[in-house]
């Protein structure tokens, strides 16, 4: 018997696999499809489910995402594993022109309860064609919900919430978190809400909004800052679209300072959107310039020494905060 508050120690990737297992058990209309899905964590699902609901697809990203859309329109709740986020460009037509638009274009006749999982595959020496963090690409399109969990519990709870959501959801997982272990709720009905950011650490001097995998760095930065007498509030964005403006604005209203940590390229990043939103709606509470801590506007190199230098670190966040004095 499991109790409501029981937890089990799982890595971020294991938590994702469990979420899929539980949702596939709960609802027989949930299926999982993608390329070589066993390689991306799903191998144990093959012990429980068969080829009807687990589909290894050919290498046809635009079409198998679209197959997911078509299946979602007609009674299934597909989870499509787009494995590596740099492949999402191939599928962006089906995501943007179909998944995101069909409900609207049919005047609400149809819904698209589709989940697309994908992982940002950076800091991994795979070079520019594998290492993008392209969530900003889908943010501009209305109609898609975009999630970026930064903990194992959220990876599980948000994926489950996504499966139960009636709209198309794209989840960006961060492979740099895949092996991070954590106590994760066992109860299969614990969901993490879509559209709610979470204050992971309270503080009063500066707000650090962390996007996706930046969270560990943001939390460490807050510790360093605390030692230096600066009290940082760390907000885990969790949902990229729709943006939880309230949580961010409330925090900035207290701190007057905003840092956004985001591993996407700076221009047109989620950090940019948050900065713009606060500059528009929270301007009067803002006492210092907003600082975006992001990857610079160059591609990801193969060389690992250089690659690491592109991304958000504790020290970059600390330095950014220190410029705000």
């Amino acid at each position, binding site marked *: 018997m499991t109790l409501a508050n029981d937890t089990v120690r799982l890595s971020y990737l294991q938590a994702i696999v469990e979420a899929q297992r539980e949702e596939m058990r709960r609802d027989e209309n949930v299926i999982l499809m993608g390329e070589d899905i066993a390689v991306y964590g799903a191998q144990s699902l093959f012990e429980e489910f068969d080829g009807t609901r687990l589909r290894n697809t050919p290498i046809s990203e635009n079409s198998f995402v*679209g197959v997911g859309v*078509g299946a979602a329109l007609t009674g299934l709740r597909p989870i499509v594993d787009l494995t590596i986020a740099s492949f999402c460009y191939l599928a962006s037509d089906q995501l943007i022109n179909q998944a995101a638009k069909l409900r609207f274009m049919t005047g609400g006749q149809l819904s698209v309860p589709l989940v697309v999982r994908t992982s940002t595959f950076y800091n991994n020496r795979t070079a520019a064609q594998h290492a993008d963090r392209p969530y900003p690409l889908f943010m501009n399109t209305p109609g898609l919900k975009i999630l970026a969990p930064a903990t194992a519990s959220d990876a599980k709870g948000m994926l489950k919430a996504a499966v139960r959501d*009636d709209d198309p959801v794209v989840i960006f997982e961060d492979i740099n978190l895949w092996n991070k272990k954590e106590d994760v709720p066992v109860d299969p009905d614990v969901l993490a809400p879509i559209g709610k950011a979470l204050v992971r650490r309270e503080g009063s001097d500066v707000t650090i909004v962390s996007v996706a995998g930046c969270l560990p760095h943001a939390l460490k930065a807050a510790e360093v800052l605390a030692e230096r007498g600066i009290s940082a509030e760390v907000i885990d964005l969790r949902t990229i679209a729709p943006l939880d403006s309230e949580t961010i604005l409330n925090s900035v209203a207290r701190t007057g300072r905003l840092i956004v940590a985001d591993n996407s390229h700076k221009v047109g990043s989620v950090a940019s959107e948050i900065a713009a939103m606060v500059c528009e709606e929270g301007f009067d509470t803002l006492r210092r310039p907003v600082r975006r801590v992001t990857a610079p506007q160059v591609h990801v190199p193969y060389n690992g020494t250089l690659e690491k230098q592109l991304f958000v670190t504790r020290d970059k966040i600390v330095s950014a905060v220190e410029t705000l004095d």
Partner: protein
Amino acid sequence: MSLDSDRQLEAFRRMVRIRLFEEALIAHNPVGHLSIGHEAAIVGACMALRDDDYVTGTHRSHGHPIGKGAEIGPLMAEIFGRRTGICKGLGGSMHLTDARMGLICESAIVGGGFPLATGAGLSAQVRGTDQVSLCFFGDGATNQGTFGESINMAAIWKLPVIYFCENNGYAVTTPVATSHGQPDIARRADGFGIPGVAVDGQDVEAVHAVVAQAVARARQGEGPTLIEARTYRFDEHSNRLAIPIEYRSQDEIEYHRRERDPVALYRAVLCERGRQQECEAVENEVRETIDAAVAFARESPEPEWADLWDNMYASPPGPEHARGDRK
């Protein structure tokens, strides 16, 4: 699997509906890509389907719901951009999608329907129903990557999908002959190990027969079929587009209008079978239906600002959606 006497007349009715629907559009609302000339292909295909079978279509979207038996009023109102339209005036001429009749998408993105139809087939298979899914597309669409990608997936999984090409010889101004490595579209099927069949798209019973066979195959779990119906578009690509070049001859157009009009051809067949009076009755009835639809559309209100927001999401939207510009 041939059409019985009642269904012959129903086929004729649907063909006339498409024809008169679009003639009304030409008269009243000069918008859209017309299916005049394609009636036999569309109706022949749809008559082989059940009401609960799925259909995806294209930018040339008017014929498909009519062929599938949808109510005319909401279709007309949609093209007039009204709130009573089948898509509340949000979708419009290229997107006449009536979900009640199994239509799940009319994609104005050429080739966009291949994966969707394939997904509907997958859905039927996973849910264990014997529904099939029929994908309408043009000759031009076969050059979109999703064509091969989707057919291949349907082939490996033996999905109940019928890929049905309305080959009218042109994609806007581009002839099949200069845009396809070889012009027989049905011949592409072999590369994926599925049957490919070409059929006279101006002969509604011939079309029905090959589609019915493909549907039977699909329902029995034997997988997809590619069907190429050779048809012809009587009007310009779209009756809003100015085409600055002559890419097909007037002679060619005249020939098809005169000798290859699918409605006239089927009427002649039915008359030969002694059913002229029934045909006339159908024509009169459809004329009334269309007139009523135009009146309905005209009198209907336009959609409202709030409709934009209310049709975006199925699940309660987040705060961003509720705020700001919604007013």
